[in-house]
């Protein structure tokens, strides 16, 4: 029994960061606790809900949710509506079952889409799945807080102890040094100390007398001013760190980081075009047609599930998706994202050159996007930044058929095997400005 409880807890750990598919994990957990401690029923005999969930997610979740109708009906409490045997027959081959069972025939009319048959499921598999769909009993008032308490707080690395230790050592050293001086003074080895004000006065007098030092200081002051003014002017129009508020609180961290969606799944134009392309809303719907809410514990900043679910609703409003009727309304409203990376019009940049030909990782210029909730401009996008990289980057001349002839010529003519992007003409004005 204990083992079962622990595995469930572990399971919650795994699913914590992912988007919620169907039910409330906390409720499930608590229900299992309730079963364990109040009813002490042997659950394993009826089915393994953990295995059930695994099977459910990989085989059923495309069409079924536990608490909501999708392509197929919601499956919560299904065991109360239908008998175990009926369900097994239905799941294994519903088409054949319809011919012999009137209820099955009626059930088939629920949706115009026929359900796939799953003859590969054993009875135990189906028991496991059904176990997973079973109703849960929730203890009054324990819902939300219980779940939160289950979420382990990630420990920040604590360096306080280290600082305290360092400070003690420092104080000890100072004490040692003072002790040493006092001993020396008492012995008469060291000269008698001037008072602090006397010392300061001497320095001030010397400073006042030294005209050359004044001159040097003026020069230094002017140079320093020039340096800072120039530095300030240089950053005008450089928007490194620019992190605008977007119309939808979309988190790259959840999508690219936690769920490991490839950058180019959404930004598919990057390999073909000069622009990486902001995915059109229909690309979002590839997944979000089935994912209408986030997991309970999802958080972006201070925003939790209550706010983030509304953000998904914004997407539905944009594409005109009726999440209740599960159909498109035809009323669309394009999403006005705020551009993060803005190159001036006179600078030409081509994503496909860098992504497809050079094979660069997106992160090289865009930074750890998979760790950003809201994307900010990682690189300065200055010309200096561009050409520094072009100076350092060596072009792989051997793999691409285009470079083959150039490689042969270079090798033959100059005995050069490797060249940088700059040597290939990557610093010429006209390559980016036309």
């Amino acid at each position: 029994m204990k083992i079962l409880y622990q595995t469930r807890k572990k399971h919650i750990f795994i699913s914590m960061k992912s988007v919620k598919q169907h039910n409330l994990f906390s409720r499930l957990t608590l229900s299992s606790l309730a079963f364990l401690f109040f009813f002490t029923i042997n659950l394993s005999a009826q089915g393994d809900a953990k295995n059930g969930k695994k099977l459910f997610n990989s085989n059923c979740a495309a069409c079924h949710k536990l608490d909501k109708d999708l392509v197929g009906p919601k499956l919560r409490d299904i065991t109360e509506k239908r008998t175990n045997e009926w369900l097994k027959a239905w799941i294994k081959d519903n088409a054949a079952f319809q011919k012999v069972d009137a209820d099955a025939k009626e059930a088939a009319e629920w949706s115009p889409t026929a359900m796939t048959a799953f003859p590969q499921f054993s009875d135990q598999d189906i028991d496991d799945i059904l176990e997973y769909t079973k109703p849960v009993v929730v203890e009054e008032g324990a819902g939300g807080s219980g779940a939160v308490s289950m979420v382990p707080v990630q420990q920040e690395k604590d360096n306080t102890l280290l600082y305290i230790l360092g400070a003690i050592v420092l104080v000890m050293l100072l004490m040692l040094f003072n002790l040493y001086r006092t001993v020396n003074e008492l012995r008469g080895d060291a000269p008698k100390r001037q008072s602090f004000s006397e010392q300061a006065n001497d320095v001030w007098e010397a400073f006042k007398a030294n005209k050359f030092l004044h001159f040097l200081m003026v020069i230094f002051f002017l140079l320093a001013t020039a340096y800072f003014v120039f530095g300030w002017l240089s950053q005008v129009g450089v928007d490194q760190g620019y992190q605008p508020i977007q119309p939808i609180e979309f988190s790259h961290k959840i999508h690219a980081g936690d769920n490991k969606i490839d950058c180019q799944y959404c930004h598919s134009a990057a390999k073909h075009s000069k622009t990486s392309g902001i995915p059109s809303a229909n690309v979002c719907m590839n997944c979000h047609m089935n994912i209408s809410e986030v997991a309970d514990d999802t958080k972006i900043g201070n925003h939790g599930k209550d706010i983030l679910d509304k953000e998904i609703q914004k997407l539905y409003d944009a594409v005109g998706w009726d999440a209740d009727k599960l159909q498109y309304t035809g009323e669309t409203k394009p999403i006005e994202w705020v551009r993060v990376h803005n190159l001036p019009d006179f600078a030409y940049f081509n994503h496909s050159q860098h992504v497809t030909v050079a094979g660069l990782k997106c992160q090289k210029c865009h930074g750890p996007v998979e760790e950003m909730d809201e994307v900010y401009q990682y690189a300065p996008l200055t010309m200096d930044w561009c050409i520094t990289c072009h100076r350092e980057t060596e072009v792989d001349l051997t793999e691409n058929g285009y470079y083959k002839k150039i490689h042969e010529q270079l090798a033959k003519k100059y005995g050069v095997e490797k060249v940088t992007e700059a040597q290939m003409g990557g610093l010429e004005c006209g390559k980016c400005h036309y």
Partner: protein
Amino acid sequence: MASNKKYWKSVEELNENSSIVDTLRQNEFVEEIPTDDFLGDKETLEKSSTTRRDFLKYVGFSTAAASLASCEGPVKKAIPYVVKPNEITPGVADYYASTIADGYDFASVLVKVREGRPIKLEPNKDTNGSTNARVQASVLSLYDSLRLQAPSKAGSSISWDTADNEIGKALTSVAAANKTIAILSSTDANPTTTKLVADFTENYGNVRHVIYDAVSESAAIDAFEAMYGKRALPSYDFSKAKAIVSVGADFLGDWQGGNFDNDYAKGRIPDHGKMSHHTQFESNMTLSGANADVRVMVKPSVQNAILADLYNALVNGASAKDANVAKAVKEIRKAGSNAVVVTGIQDKNAQLLAMAINNAIGSEVMNTSVTNNTRQGNDTEVAQLVADMKAGRIGAILINNSNPVYTLPNSADFVEGLGKVDLSVAFSMVNNETVQATQYALPTPHNLESWGVVEMKSGQFSLMQPTIRPLFDTRQFQDCLLKWTGNTQKYYDYIKTEISALGADKSFNKALQDGHFSASSSEEVTTGEVDLSAAYRSVANVKGNGLELQLYTKTGLGDGQQANNPWLQELPDPITRTTWDNYLTISQVDADKFNLSMPLSSLTQRSLHDADGGLNGYYCELTVGDVKVTIPVLIQPGQAPGSVGLALGYGRKAGLKSEMQVGKNAYHFYKNFNTSQSGVSLKKVDGVHEFACTQLHNTMMGRGDIVKETTLATYNDHSLDPKHTWNPVPVVSYKHQEVEATTVDLWDEFDRSVGHHFNLSIDLNACTGCGACVVACHAENNVPVVGKAEVRKSRDMHWLRIDRYYSSDMTEEKAHEEGIGAIEKFSEMENPSANPQVAFQPIMCQHCNHAPCETVCPVAATSHGRQGQNQMAYNRCVGTRYCANNCPYKVRRFNWFDYANNKEFDFNMNDDLGKMVLNPDVTVRSRGVMEKCSMCIQMTQATILKAKKEGRPVGDDEFETACSNACGTGAMVFGDLNNKNSKVAKLKEDKRAYHLLEHIGTRPNVVYQVKVRNTEA
């Protein structure tokens, strides 16, 4: 400056006692500013709650706020598709094969589409398509903001449903009253339209379909019909021609629909020492005349005699009366069946003679079994229709893509007739005179928004497909016909079934992808009996009557339907180099006779140029019969004495922006649809007209090695070393010895052998001066239009210009022989001869390897790339203009104004719709920077990137520039010199190859090919 000269601005100033002048002198500001009234009114001032201190606080705060706010960059929005169409990848262009068929120009094209916007047209070379300047520019006409946007009735908008209802009822009642329903349309060469009109006729009974070409070829069609029983034109393949004799036919212009220049140019390149011989008899200086080997100035009436003489010699075997005809006959006999005679005389008999000559010599150039369908107008029927309308015999008229109120010489009769029909409907893309004169105006889509099948040559079909969703609430004429005959099909579905019915050789989808399909033509031509001797007698007896007028169409505006297109208005006429105007071309002799010559100025004789270098001309009143028009005069070398020329297509007002309402309507003179009119009288009237003429801009006059030419005989003489005879390499003095300029160098040479090295070859023999490249360059490179006033100030922005050179009677040799002094010699050299030889030379940035512009730029804004391109970084340019000063080719253009965001320049770039044509890959330049040809670096880079992405080397002739792509004649060839298989690498080594101004050592990457003339001597 002479002190006794008096200068004045206004005539009023000459009156010494004028009180106005005195007042104006005393008061700088004419209108007094009421400061005293305001500040003297203490009461009002005290009432104000704003104290002085508060006012200063507000000023201070708002200044601070404004400057703080300006530190923040603007927030830019990025709005993706909600549902992205599969075929669109943002940033990647799609190409669709389609067709332009606007009733005047016909071309198979590729449409370059970016994010659903057509931005450029290119010739569809797979189907032998070629584009002229107007076809290239028609993509901008799509984004004309003055297009008709919704159906209207008497000027107020109505819905399509209302229009369908009302017109349907009216048509039914007209049919019930047994009155005629007339359909007046321009040639669309669309077999499905013909079929739909037949269905329409079946539905309504009494329907008359009249095809009307604004500029008609009816005479030639009538002649063909008489001879072969079909209303069409023969097709010509000039690439087979070894001898071409044209009597007044500008076949390199718009004669019989044009599109002959590609084939013509093939025969003009002296590949194996052979080229065609071209004799042109004409009155106006045309493109064909300018390219001819022998050009004979003949006024229109005499052209008849010339043709009759030719006929008599070639068919009847008599000897030619005229010496020039005799020479032409000799050339024709030499060429045998590879000769052709064409004529532009708008007379059925003359056209019959020309065809008879071609039949007699068995010309392979003329093909009567494959017909040209791009002109189908029938003048007799048009005249009959106008008469019937006036007589009230027409119940309803549907006018499609035609502007008879503007183009008909008797448009007043037509307008009167319109008043007598019960129902008048105009289908039109643009707002024009006819639209305003009819009851209903129904907007039709642009060719780029339409479906269509176009049979330009019999059996060869091109498909037209939409490349953008209709911008406005438009409907195709064919869709209307379908609807009004009760057919529920869309025209798209109709086409799909029709093309298989036509017997297409491929599936609809394949045909759509190729833009082309062929089908065997069912129509057989029959040979009819024609009384040629009567025709001969009629032609031989044509007599002229005084001064004669030859009407013509310009390369830019054509018949005038695209008059609201600023690219075409600003395209310099290839011959006169004048923009934004039409004018009366006149010979020097006649100008003197009618006192129309400008007073002599000291050096540039016989034309007065003002301080800006603009050309001026006197006004004259031109009278033919009862039609009078006041028009400026331009003295045209090569104009046949006794004749004057005037371009059609100008002087439109309706539906045009004010800037485009230029010139005078010459259609008033187009009586009996004949382009030549006799009995013309001229009278000088007051005033001086200012032309916006680019012929004197950026001249290289006085410097050698610009246009090199030789004769075919010299070219073929292999005993001559071209380097020292007809294509001499200039020599310079080096260490007191004369050496070839190409061997001396101030600079170290870079190694350009690795990677690409771009070169552009321009063949002066193949360049006909058509101007397609100029417009293509505009479209590709976002070149701004500057307007007439700015062009006059030499501020045209053309990156690519086509210089036109006239030869002069004065030569170095003649001056030497006759002992003429240097000043007089050079002055005379700039004075073209009465019938000059002409050379066209496209000039763009020469991309010098040792560029003079690069060394003088103080900020290194212009620099050289290792691929041979001279690069211009606009963002670096501070506008010193040193580079333009130092450029020997005068190809740099300074951007004086922010043309893209300045409402003073009301052209496409300042128009929300017009901006859609801009190429997103090329920067729209701002004010204060220098710009010039980049050798389409955005295109070469795109080609390289494509190869890199596919992991392969670039193909032999894969590189293109906008101009070389648009050039159908093969005059411009672009490519990679380091690829020895490329055409340009071979052309660079050709014995005709030379560089402009080679002696100054700039080492250009643009190479020219010596012009070879097939002349004697």
